[in-house]
């Protein structure tokens, strides 16, 4: 009986300080199956997998691999027991070739050449057996994301992995690349590899897994045969209540033109052309979605529109309160402070580096960009009491928990940090909103809330530019969709003509050519 199970976890407990990340978790994974683990951020999925991969020991509980009780003192032990992990962020040395990356850490003997020759043969065998074609001599820095993921999987298999943990593997893939990955997973499964898939995308769980475990608040709340469950039930189990994700959309008349960009080119410090001839327009009362695989120029576009980076080519026009047009170009740069006063709010993609100051208390982060506001400005001083009261009010309005304005910004969960930023940017009724990855790393309950707020802002007449790598999010919110690929806008679709396949084709467009 137990020998059918590749992985068996019993009564796993793990505490970090006061946080009880895993509370008596039981998990059984059949050999040769694809087992999904779903849950919101902070549900304890990653902690559990880190324990299984030997990153840290469990406080309590037992682990058995192939029916044998094991003690995992480090990742080395886990690898010895045939466990491999593909991380969400690839752990590859960019300047090394595929072969060098695969061998890294598994070299035999003093001289490298012998290991490499042996590795080349083994790599070829694995690639043939599992259908994971990658050129062993290609430099990692030159490979597309989908190939990098195959390299990571090869790395794990090369070390003899028979149990493969994949942590949010599709976050950076196009729909087509995702499908290719799923085909690989099917081959792996057919060859008897056991796969643990951690994700928050329920569609993927339903598409590829045999069985699914739902976690919430550090515990397992359900364990289902995939065939016997559905998206609605899983979502409800994850959040602990019913979730409504549709019905946000109601077509509306768009208003005046508010923001216009024409012919934006932009080169990064290394001289690489990151944006090429990007033009777009943004009207009051509409949400324009920018879809694309991350790293195709969306971040650069947001940085230019918000004046975080100076324009190099092309120009930007912004209509002010009185209907007059303000022009910006390389010779007439804007600055974030000025744009903010003109009613351009910006919710940055990278909330930890830009949106908040993690070392600040919440009320200080809530002042970011607005420390000169008349409500908190007292000559050269900041009116601390007034600023804290204002922050409390923002927390109340956007349901930021815990409601403690003196708590360090880093102590809030991702969703609550994001809500604090939204509260700060939304409260002055912006005329234009630039918003990047509004729900990245945010739990499902908060996603719903954030989406409703964005739509409410649009309904109040704000012009919204939404950059997101989540197609679901774009499709749920946007009135008009621009697709970016390779630094260009490769397509524009009305919301009614857009679906995942069409968007996916446009997203893959220039990448195939490049």
């Amino acid at each position, binding site marked *: 009986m137990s020998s059918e199970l590749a992985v068996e976890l019993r009564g796993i407990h793990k*505490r*970090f*300080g*006061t946080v009880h990340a895993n509370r008596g978790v039981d998990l059984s994974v059949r050999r040769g199956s694809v087992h999904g683990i779903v849950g919101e951020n902070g549900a304890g999925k990653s902690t559990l997998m880190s324990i299984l991969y030997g990153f840290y020991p469990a*406080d309590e509980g037992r682990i058995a691999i192939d029916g044998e009780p094991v003690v995992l003192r480090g990742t080395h032990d886990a690898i010895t027991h045939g466990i491999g992990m593909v991380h969400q962020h690839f752990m590859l040395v960019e300047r090394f070739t595929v072969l060098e990356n695969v061998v890294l850490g598994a070299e035999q003997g003093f001289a490298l050449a012998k290991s490499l020759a042996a590795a080349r043969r083994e790599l070829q065998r694995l690639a043939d057996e599992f259908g994971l074609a990658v050129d062993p001599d290609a430099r990692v820095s030159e490979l597309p994301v989908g190939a990098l993921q195959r390299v990571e999987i090869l790395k794990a298999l090369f070390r003899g992995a028979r149990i493969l943990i994949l942590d949010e593997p599709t976050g950076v893939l196009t729909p087509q690349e995702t499908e290719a990955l799923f085909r690989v997973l099917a081959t792996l499964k057919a060859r008897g590899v056991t796969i643990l898939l951690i994700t928050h995308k329920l569609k993927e769980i339903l598409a590829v897994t045999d069985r699914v475990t739902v976690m919430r608040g550090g515990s397992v709340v359900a364990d289902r045969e995939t065939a016997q469950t559905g998206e609605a039930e899983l979502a409800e189990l994850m959040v602990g209540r019913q979730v409504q994700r549709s019905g946000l959309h109601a077509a509306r008349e768009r208003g005046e033109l508010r923001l216009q960009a024409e012919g934006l080119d932009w080169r990064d410090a290394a001289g690489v052309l990151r944006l090429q001839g990007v033009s777009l327009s943004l009207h009051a009362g509409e949400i324009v979605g920018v879809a694309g695989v991350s790293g195709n120029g969306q971040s650069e576009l947001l940085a230019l529109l*918000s004046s*975080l980076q100076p324009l190099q080519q092309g120009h930007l026009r912004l209509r002010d309160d009185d209907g007059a047009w303000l022009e910006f170009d390389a010779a007439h740069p804007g*600055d*974030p*402070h*000025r744009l*903010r006063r003109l009613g351009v709010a*910006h919710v*940055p993609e*990278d909330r930890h*580096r*830009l*949106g*908040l*100051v*993690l*070392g*600040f208390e919440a009320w*200080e982060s809530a*002042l*970011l*960009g607005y*420390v*000169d506001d008349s409500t908190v*400005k007292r000559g*050269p*001083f*900041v009116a*601390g009491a007034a600023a804290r009261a204002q922050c409390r009010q923002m927390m109340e309005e956007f349901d930021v928990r815990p409601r403690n304005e003196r708590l360090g910004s880093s102590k809030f969960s991702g969703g609550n940090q994001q809500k604090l930023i939204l509260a700060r940017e939304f409260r002055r009724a912006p005329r234009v909103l630039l918003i990047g990855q509004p729900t990245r790393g945010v739990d499902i309950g908060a996603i719903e809330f954030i989406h409703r707020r964005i739509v409410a802002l649009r309904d109040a007449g704000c012009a919204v530019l939404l950059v997101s790598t989540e197609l679901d999010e774009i499709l749920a919110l946007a009135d008009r969709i621009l697709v970016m690929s390779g630094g260009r806008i490769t397509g524009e679709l009305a919301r009614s003509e857009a679906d995942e396949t069409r968007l996916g084709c446009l997203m893959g467009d220039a990448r195939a050519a490049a």
Partner: protein
Amino acid sequence: MKNVPAVLPRWIDVVLLPVLNVLMALGAAGLVVWAIGQNPFTAVQLLVQGAFGSALAWSYTLYYTTNFICTGLAVAVAFHCGHFNIGAEGQGTVGGLGVGLVLLAGDAWLPGWLLVPLALAGGLLSGAAWAFVPAWLQARRGSHIVITTIMFNFLASTLMVWLLVNVVKVPGNQAVESRLFAPGAVLPSAQAMFAALGIEWPDTPLNLAFAIALLACVGVWAMLWHTRLGYALRTVGLAAGAARYAGIDPRRLTVVALCISGALAALVGVNEIAGVHHKLLLDFVAGAGFTGIAVALMGRNHPVGIVLSALLFGALAQGGSELVFEMPAFTRDMSVAVQGFVVLFCGALALLLRPPVAWVYGRLAKGPAA
């Protein structure tokens, strides 16, 4: 490492750990004293006696403390903006030069009540100006401030030598120094101020600059945590990206913070030139600029912590020289070694004892509940 609390109560981090660190440093220093065949306990007793045993001892300790407060604040302000100012030594030197030149220029014809504040302003501006150049180079040209400020220390000391030998030297005097300032054109000594209140106080270098340094602490505290400038400065230090996002120019703030830092370091020059020596001379900063790094580190870059750690270093400086005097086997170099141990244990190894303390605290905190 089961059940070790990640977050400890503030008193452990703020009080207990620093005290334990000082005790470790004294323990290590005690081993050195023991190794040269002296009694470590006698040495500690002599040191404490020498630093705090009398009004005279206190007065000297506070005089040293003054310099360490100023340079500690200077390092801390730059640090809050994300920069490591190793140039307090040079900024203090040039600050003192500014003070001295104003006093030399004006003591013949300006009244003291006007001249001394002018000299103070001159000193602060000179210190700020000396810090401005590396700051500007960092902001505009990306020249690393750690390198440039340390180079500017050498430039400052060379500049002093050149000026004292060629420009302000008294003809016929063998010593490399200026003439004395007029008696009315200096900061009042502690002895003079206490005498005005009818209190008898020994004749020591302690002077009004100590009060100015304490005022600077209050000023720095208010500036960093209660002004928009301080907010912007800390934003740049903690997250330069977020600063740009907020419309704060990190380059401008770098220059502003370093100028404030330089002005604070210049207070050493105010203390030494206008308060103690009453003339321009060489090497009056005497390493306080470097000690300031340890002071700021140990004081966690907070004015209150800086006052306390400056007092510790002041006591070590004063008590150490008494100890050298009373215990001949204990040389000047050993006194420096003791300061080195304090820097090592309180600065570089400040968190050495945190894991075991956290473990003990975890056990004790759980004890009553279990």
